[in-house]
């Protein structure tokens, strides 16, 4: 029977193989599916063999890429079959065809559970594998305890236990609550004593998942991991079957070292020493051998060791050893090793002090940029990008530019962007920067986003010594026969503004420049045409003495577009034509663009991350710093308060998009201020800084109409006066983000950002042990200059004793200092400590007051509640002031699970299932003050029909604790965005269901 049934499968597979084309295959598959569907539907007593055969066929068809949307039920039903063969098919096919989201899977939970708790090992294995592959949340809830029992059982065979380990891992991923740190850190540590390497392999994966979720909870596992590594590297007690090409279980070695990297650091000196001995042995003892597989395995171990050494922040000597090994690797023939060598060297860049030694391999890395393997080329590109600084930017960027012409299409965009970023970040001089960007546009115009060309225009505009050079370069590029449209834009713009500076250069007369630009005119888009019209009128204005022939040519262009269908072009043509007839008066209107306010480059902003740059300054940054132009100072001026208006002559909108490519109009505006209607500008918030670049919007501070009309051409003079006024009334530094959001986030986690502005970032990392806490403040100077007069004062509330270590007066550029803050909790209170922080950048002092997230819940420790204990304690505490109850309205509507998560994040441990009503939460925590520890019990009763209200009861043997904790929880539950009870006059009373519920409670 069985044979013929499965022969049917073989025949079917053969048929499929014999199909000449996809069409035939589809016909055969459709026929088979129809056959299976009818059989499932009609034949009531379908034999299990047939079912089995059909189900395998379905899986085969599914693999071929056909949707199999029926038969799921039959497949799942096979799991419950009594014969092993059917059961096995059911399990395997179910875990391929279905996923955790299928409802059918729930039907199987009971059978699966019976198989797991049954005595049959092979059934146990099948069931554990299924749950390990596709088990969802439902499975977590009903199976976790059984699976844990199997994993911990000493009577189970290893084959069952290792599957139980990975099954538990899956359940934990679906619902982290199934593994409680308190109980499991000891169990994990015991499991790591396991001698059987298969079980150990699976347990190690479980450990990685647990530690990744809670790095502080599993410290006791660290020495065990080190011991496992010692055993493996010394080949102690390693069975033959776990020796892979002569190496004791390389997989487990790698996994164990990976697990250790999830711990923040390893402090215990003995463990650390033992580990470094192991690592040293691996680093020194790995040789290249002939056998590919052996070589592979040995290097897998070696690379993981390198990774771990980097993670552990080893001594300098060991680090340089690592760099030397990697340096050797990036030069070998074996492509895998070369690939990983480059990848790891890139990671190595994050380690301080080794950048210099990595630079020695620059030539070798550049060779890899030409490797035939794109995977390797990408690694090399990443590494070069990472290692670039002022000293080697010229070489690296030029290599990238060279590579650009031959690079694969897929990598070009990234390459162009990286080259542009490096050029800006590390330009040794500005002429070079302009060269690089123009080359980039020339070679890869399609990949140059607008921000890149805006940026180069901005630099040229703001630096007088670049202007003639920029214009000359633009002329050279535009003289080429075929150029990218972006080049026409940037070239047209620069020539419009600055070509007059070239007047004495041969071939650069106004007429010649116009001819060069106008040759490109017919083929470019409307928006570029508009930009070129602006350039033309500027060229016309600058042609001194006036050249009637040029004037005639340009006028012809304007006239031609007077009736253009595009409103923008038409308007420009009409207005420019009219303006250009004004003769010399035009000069005031068409004056040179003022300097742009310096803003953070959108490009750099996008890419800037925590990585610390070398303190050296690039030319672009230096220049930005040195410039004392008015444009620099007005950066932080708030435009929102309204007195400053610009009056656009020609348009009623100043939105960036519409201003795009519309540079000359700004200038016309300024001369004509008195005719204009006031038009408020968008407020210059932090977000505006992030907007592409200054080019789209005019530099508004210089455009105060009254000033302008009296002194229209002297921008420099007026800048100073307006800047002075600004410094007086404007808060000079704005945070990048919301102080409140940062604070709220830190209330429920222990590390993150407390405050950030363009100059400084204050990060925070906290550790709590009962009533004591240690908070480390990380003061990071983001600025290219030093921050001076740094001062931090803690204003503690009465219930906290706080001691801040000395804060240095100065933070060097791009440096970070750490200031530990010791805290002792004396009493329960919701009062907050405040950090009074001030610093100066340049001469501007900044002072900020920040609330510190040393909140009540930091001194709580979740405690598991046994039902009997809870009930007796709960009963013992009766009524106020020890047991407080309140109906809270206006709470954030949260599903019950999320609310449990909120409590858990506050270190208040929810005891699931303790309250029989699923809409209620019961939780417990221990509050620690210096004098005593207090057990607190919390009960929340929610109303499923109205999630915005609930009844909260808090009980503890200490009246103060009860009150403060109740109020604190209430604050956390209330949604600030909806009106809270305070806003509802108590006397008006409530109506509707809310009142009914209140009455019931």
């Amino acid at each position, binding site marked *: 029977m069985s044979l013929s049934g499965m022969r049917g499968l073989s025949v079917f597979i053969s048929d499929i193989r014999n199909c000449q084309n996809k069409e035939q295959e589809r016909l055969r598959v459709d026929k088979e599916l129809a056959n299976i569907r009818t059989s499932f539907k009609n034949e009531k007593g379908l034999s299990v063999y047939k079912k089995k055969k059909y189900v395998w066929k379905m899986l085969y068809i599914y693999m071929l890429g056909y949707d199999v949307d029926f038969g799921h039920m039959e497949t799942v039903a096979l799991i419950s079959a009594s014969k092993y063969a059917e059961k096995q098919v059911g399990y395997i096919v179910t875990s391929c065809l279905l996923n955790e989201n299928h409802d059918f899977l729930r039907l199987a939970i009971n059978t699966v559970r019976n198989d797991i708790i049954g005595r049959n090992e092979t059934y146990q294995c099948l069931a554990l594998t299924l749950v390990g592959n596709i088990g969802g949340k439902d499975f977590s809830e009903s199976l976790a305890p059984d699976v844990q029992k199997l994993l911990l059982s000493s009577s189970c065979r290893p084959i069952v236990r290792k599957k139980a380990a990975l099954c538990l891992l899956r359940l934990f991923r679906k619902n982290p609550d199934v593994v409680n740190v308190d109980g499991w850190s000891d169990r994990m540590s015991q499991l790591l004593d396991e001698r059987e390497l*298969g079980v150990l392999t699976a347990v190690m994966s479980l450990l990685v998942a647990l530690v990744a979720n809670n790095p502080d909870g599993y410290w006791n596992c660290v020495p065990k991991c080190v011991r496992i590594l010692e055993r493996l590297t010394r080949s102690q007690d390693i069975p033959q*079957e776990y020796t892979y090409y002569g190496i004791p279980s390389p997989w487990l070695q790698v996994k164990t070292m990976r697990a250790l990297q999830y711990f923040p650091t390893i402090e215990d000196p003995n463990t650390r020493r033992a580990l470094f001995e192991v690592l040293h042995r691996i680093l020194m003892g790995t040789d290249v051998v002939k056998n590919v597989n052996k070589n592979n395995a040995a290097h897998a171990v070696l690379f993981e060791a390198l990774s771990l050494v980097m993670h552990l922040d080893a001594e300098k000597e060991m680090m340089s050893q690592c760099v030397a090994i990697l340096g050797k690797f990036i030069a070998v023939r074996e492509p895998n090793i070369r690939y990983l060598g480059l990848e790891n060297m890139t990671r190595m860049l994050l380690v301080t002090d080794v950048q210099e030694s990595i630079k020695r391999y620059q030539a070798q890395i550049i060779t890899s940029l030409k490797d035939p393997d794109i995977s390797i080329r990408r690694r090399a590109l990443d590494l070069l990008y990472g290692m670039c600084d002022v000293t080697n930017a010229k070489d690296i960027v030029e290599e990238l530019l060279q590579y650009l012409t031959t690079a694969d299409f897929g990598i070009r965009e990234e390459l162009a962007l990286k080259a542009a970023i490096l050029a800006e970040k590390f330009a040794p001089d500005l002429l070079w920067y302009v060269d690089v960007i123009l080359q980039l546009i020339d070679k890869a115009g399609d990949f140059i986003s607008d921000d890149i060309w805006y940026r180069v225009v901005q630099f040229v505009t703001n630096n007088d010594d670049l202007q003639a050079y920029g214009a000359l370069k633009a002329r050279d590029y535009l003289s080429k026969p075929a150029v990218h449209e972006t080049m026409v834009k940037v070239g047209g713009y620069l020539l419009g503004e600055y070509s007059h500076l070239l007047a004495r250069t041969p071939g650069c007369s106004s007429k010649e420049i116009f001819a060069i630009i106008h040759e490109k005119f017919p083929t470019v888009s409307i928006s570029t045409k508009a930009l070129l019209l602006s350039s033309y009128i500027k060229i016309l204005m600058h042609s001194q003495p006036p050249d009637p022939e040029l004037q005639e040519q340009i006028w012809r262009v304007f006239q031609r577009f007077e009736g253009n269908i595009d409103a923008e072009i038409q308007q420009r043509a009409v207005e420019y034509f009219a303006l250009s007839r004004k003769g010399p008066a035009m000069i005031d209107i068409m004056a040179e663009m003022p300097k742009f306010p310096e803003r953070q480059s959108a490009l750099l902003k996008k890419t800037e991350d925590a990585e610390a740059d070398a303190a050296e300054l690039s030319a672009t940054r230096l220049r930005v710093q040195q410039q004392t132009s008015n444009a620099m100072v007005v950066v932080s001026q708030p435009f929102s308060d309204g007195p400053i208006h610009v009056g656009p002559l020609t348009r009623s909108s100043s939105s960036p998009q519409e201003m795009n490519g519309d540079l000359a109009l700004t200038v016309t505006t300024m001369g004509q201020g008195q005719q204009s209607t006031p038009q408020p500008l968008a407020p210059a918030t932090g977000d505006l800084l992030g907007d592409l670049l200054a080019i789209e919007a005019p530099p508004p501070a210089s455009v105060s109409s009254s000033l302008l009309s009296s002194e229209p051409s002297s921008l420099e003079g007026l800048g100073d006066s307006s800047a002075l006024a600004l410094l007086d009334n404007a808060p000079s530094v704005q945070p990048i983000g919301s102080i409140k959001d940062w604070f709220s986030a830190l209330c429920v986690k222990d590390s993150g950002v407390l405050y950030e502005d363009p100059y400084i970032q204050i990060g925070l990392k906290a550790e709590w042990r009962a009533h004591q806490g240690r908070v480390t403040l990380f003061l990071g100077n983001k600025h290219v200059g030093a921050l001076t007069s740094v001062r931090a004062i803690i204003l503690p509330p009465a219930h906290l004793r706080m001691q801040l270590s000395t804060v240095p007066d100065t933070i060097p550029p791009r440096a970070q200092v750490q200031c530990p803050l010791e805290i002792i909790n004396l009493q329960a209170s919701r009062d907050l400590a405040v950090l009074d922080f001030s610093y100066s950048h340049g001469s501007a002092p900044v002072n900020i007051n920040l609330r510190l997230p040393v909140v009540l819940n930091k001194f709580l420790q979740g405690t598991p509640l046994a039902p009997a204990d809870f009930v007796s304690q709960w009963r013992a505490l009766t009524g106020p002031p020890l047991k407080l109850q309140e109906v809270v309205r206006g709470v954030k509507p949260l599903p019950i699970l999320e609310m449990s998560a909120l409590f858990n994040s506050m270190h208040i441990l929810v005891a699931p299932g303790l309250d029989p009503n699923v809409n209620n939460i019961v939780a417990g925590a221990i509050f620690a003050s210096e004098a005593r520890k207090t057990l607190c019990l919390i009960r929340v009763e929610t109303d499923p029909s109205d999630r915005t209200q609930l009844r909260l009861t808090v009980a503890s043997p200490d009246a103060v604790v009860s009150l403060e904790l109740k109020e604190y929880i209430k604050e956390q539950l209330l949604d600030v965005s909806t009106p809270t009870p305070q806003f509802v006059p108590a006397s008006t009373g409530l109506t509707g269901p809310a009142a009914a519920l209140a009455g019931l409670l």
Partner: protein
Amino acid sequence: MIHAVLVLNTQGKPRLIKFYYPVRAEKQQDIIRNVYKVLSSRADHLSNFVEAADIFGSETKLVYKHFATLYFVFVIDNAESELGILDLIQVLVESLDRCFKNVCELDIVFNFNKVHTVLDEIIVGGHVVETSSSEIVKAAEEVFKQESFTDMIAIALKSTGKR
């Protein structure tokens, strides 16, 4: 973790697919096509790693090995060691080799169900459960014995003309 294990032949036909996260059928075919496109464009002496952000999202890689007419491809994220996965592919192939005595593509085509059994002994839910090929084969054979498929293999081999 390991996101997927794919065995494709050098014509791009899937011989075994196993995803460790939910993927719709049509998306699976897309994935197979794209993976094949990438692999078939790579010469043999190149590295065994390809970044696969376009196909599987950021931080993912293909680690693959080319044996005769088959590609064995593992899709991994950065929590796995690339060389470790290469070892694992070797373990999978050696285990299949021991189960089928000199495995070839046809064995895998006609016994794809057995290949699933072997794979389940190596990976559960995207994590490695066993790396010793003798343990893997021992466990798989225990399953086969219970299933008494042995005769069927003989037939399958006969009907395909002894490879």
